[in-house]
């Protein structure tokens, strides 16, 4: 189950070897998962995210290690135009002006005769990669900046927060498009761009926590014991302020997927013939009337994935919030 590269695992993982009679600890990964499991909606989120991530991993293995060999062996290449072109076929069991759906193309074919199912399958890899990478950049950058800013305060805080607010003030889509225009229109820069625009979100979130945590006695105790500031921030402050950030990160993955899909739709991001959901959606918009299912599939894929991350994030929030007692 890949919810998020989870730095809390090794820090708060509950040492529950403490005997059966022990009162259950209300911290730790195990407890959090247990809380999430009680919540049906959140559980659906976990399953959705898990499923989508699994597909993405399979697709990534096939793409990076085997260069679509598996796909071509069993199915069709997601990028090559097929030899016998059958354009804009509907899903199996339906008919449109181009013909009837066939079992070889269960979701139909696109405007170049490529199988939509296999493109959707491989598009998952891009969506998930983008979601995790962009959020990862925002998470790491935002957490570090926010923690430093909140811990030191004073002019360091002022400078960092004013920069953050400047970034926040510019509409993020404009910022990302400008960024990509400057550096290059490909997926890597889309990820980096979206990641940078999400730094302020994490930065402000963690700063607000750090400002209160730095006043805790155990931080003072660490300072009095001669622990370096760097270690205090990394080992003592960040793990203690991480719960809301984890929730935000989960939500942010969905948002990043949506943004990059939007960018691909606009022609930034993934370039043809890369199978990305946004780009499929973009190609399908010219064929809405003759072949409506063409645009339906990538739209559905985006919808399900984003909702999956969102409800997982909500579930995590409830699970991590000690005030909500269920």
């Amino acid at each position, binding site marked *: 189950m890949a919810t998020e590269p989870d730095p809390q695992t090794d820090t708060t993982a*509950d040492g529950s070897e*403490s005997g059966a009679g022990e009162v259950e600890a209300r*911290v730790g990964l195990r407890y959090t998962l247990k809380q999430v499991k009680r919540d049906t909606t959140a559980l659906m989120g976990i399953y959705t995210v898990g499923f989508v991530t699994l597909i993405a991993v399979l697709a990534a293995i096939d793409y990076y290690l085997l260069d679509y060999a598996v796909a071509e062996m069993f199915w069709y290449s997601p990028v090559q135009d097929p030899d016998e072109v059958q354009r804009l076929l509907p899903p199996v069991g339906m008919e449109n002006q181009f013909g009837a759906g066939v079992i070889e193309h269960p979701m139909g074919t696109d405007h170049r005769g490529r199988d939509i199912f296999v493109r959707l399958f491989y598009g998952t890899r891009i969506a998930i990669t983008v979601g995790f990478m962009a959020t990862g950049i925002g998470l790491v950058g935002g957490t570090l900046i926010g923690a430093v800013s909140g811990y030191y305060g004073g002019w360091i805080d002022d400078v960092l927060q004013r920069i953050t607010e400047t970034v926040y003030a510019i509409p993020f889509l404009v910022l990302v498009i400008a960024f990509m225009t400057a550096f290059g229109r490909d997926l890597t820069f889309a990820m980096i761009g979206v990641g940078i625009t999400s730094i302020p979100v994490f930065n402000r979130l963690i700063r607000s926590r750090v400002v209160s945590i730095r006043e805790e*006695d155990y931080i*003072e105790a*660490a300072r*009095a014991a*001669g*622990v370096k500031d760097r270690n205090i921030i990394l080992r*003592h402050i960040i793990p203690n302020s991480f719960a809301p950030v984890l929730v935000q990160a989960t939500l942010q993955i969905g948002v990043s997927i949506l943004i990059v899909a939007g960018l691909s739709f606009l022609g930034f991001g993934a370039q043809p013939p890369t199978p990305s959901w946004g780009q499929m959606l973009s190609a399908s918009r010219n064929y809405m009337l003759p072949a409506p299912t063409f645009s339906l599939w990538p739209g559905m894929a985006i919808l399900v994935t984003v909702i999956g991350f969102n409800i997982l994030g909500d579930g995590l929030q409830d699970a991590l919030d000690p005030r909500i007692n269920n």
Partner: protein
Amino acid sequence: MSEPLLSVDNLKTQFFTEDGTVRAVDGISFDVYEGEIVGLVGESGAGKSVATSSLLRLVDSPGEIVGGEITFKGETLFGLEEGSDGELRPRDEMLSEAEMREQIRGREIAIIFQDPMESLNPVFTVGGQLREFIEINRDLSAEEAKEEAIEMLREVGIPAPKSRYDEYPHQFSGGMRQRVLIAMALACQPDLIIADEPTTALDVTVEGQILEMVTDLQEKYDTSFIWVTHDMSVVAEICDRVNVMYLGEIIEHSEVDNLFYDTKHPYTQALLDSMPRPDETVHELNPIKGVMPEAINPPSGCRFHSRCPDAREVCREVHPEARNLAADGEPKHSAACVKYDAFEVGYDESRPIETEATGGFSAGLTETEGEE
């Protein structure tokens, strides 16, 4: 006596707030010798905790140490000199921030904090934190540090230290956590431990155990302590010498027995009188009247005069510095009160004034309940 281990001279720490300058510590001086426990006593707000964090230069903005000198084993922890431009600047031999961190904090001077519930990081195991501190301050490898940590847990009386090592702070009781904090302080083998009201948050039975343990460990390791507290009974129990603080100043200093049997300063007397005793019922309790004034705008003259039962007009005008009142050959016993002949400011001729303590005002009395 030999050279003191720690010597504090005229230390001043102030907080620069929007409402004005808070003189939290206003020129205190005291020494700590090897192997002794020195008490620092006073009400809440007297500046005890600020004084102790000043010793390690851990005062946060807007607070700042503005004057005085702290010497520890010949090293200057803090010291100012007048630069060529007339501005005060740190002296050259004063340790840098990095040197403080690497050589002094934890390694030479450790602090035990007041609230054991809050002084352990909730997301790490107790053992992990103990090990981290030992690793930093004793240059041991991770495995050696772990062994040492378990050994220290055993030393402070944690049962089954090996299995407790991997538990989280929330799985420990208050008294056990305090033991862990003491273990943390001792484990780094410092020469001086500052104990900042370490037993205040504990109930008396646990307090008794902890005090006993500290006394034993202190004898074993020969560590000096600065014991900050507002509890006179703790002072009587463990301290060798006592400094009484009021509003940022040390107003009385003496050997522990003399403080109790030959109390000089009216404030110390009031503190002693205000202690609940099992042989007195509650309505006979005799609290110190009024609340401590704000350190932002301390009363003129003697700072205690507004609450002092012995206040006279001269107290409002003359600000007494502590003077040694002990007879020749006796151990030093200083107090800052003009009613003693040594001050020669005409206390006896001065007219008594009405204060909260003498019953003239009721102001402040109603607030005492909310104040801690």
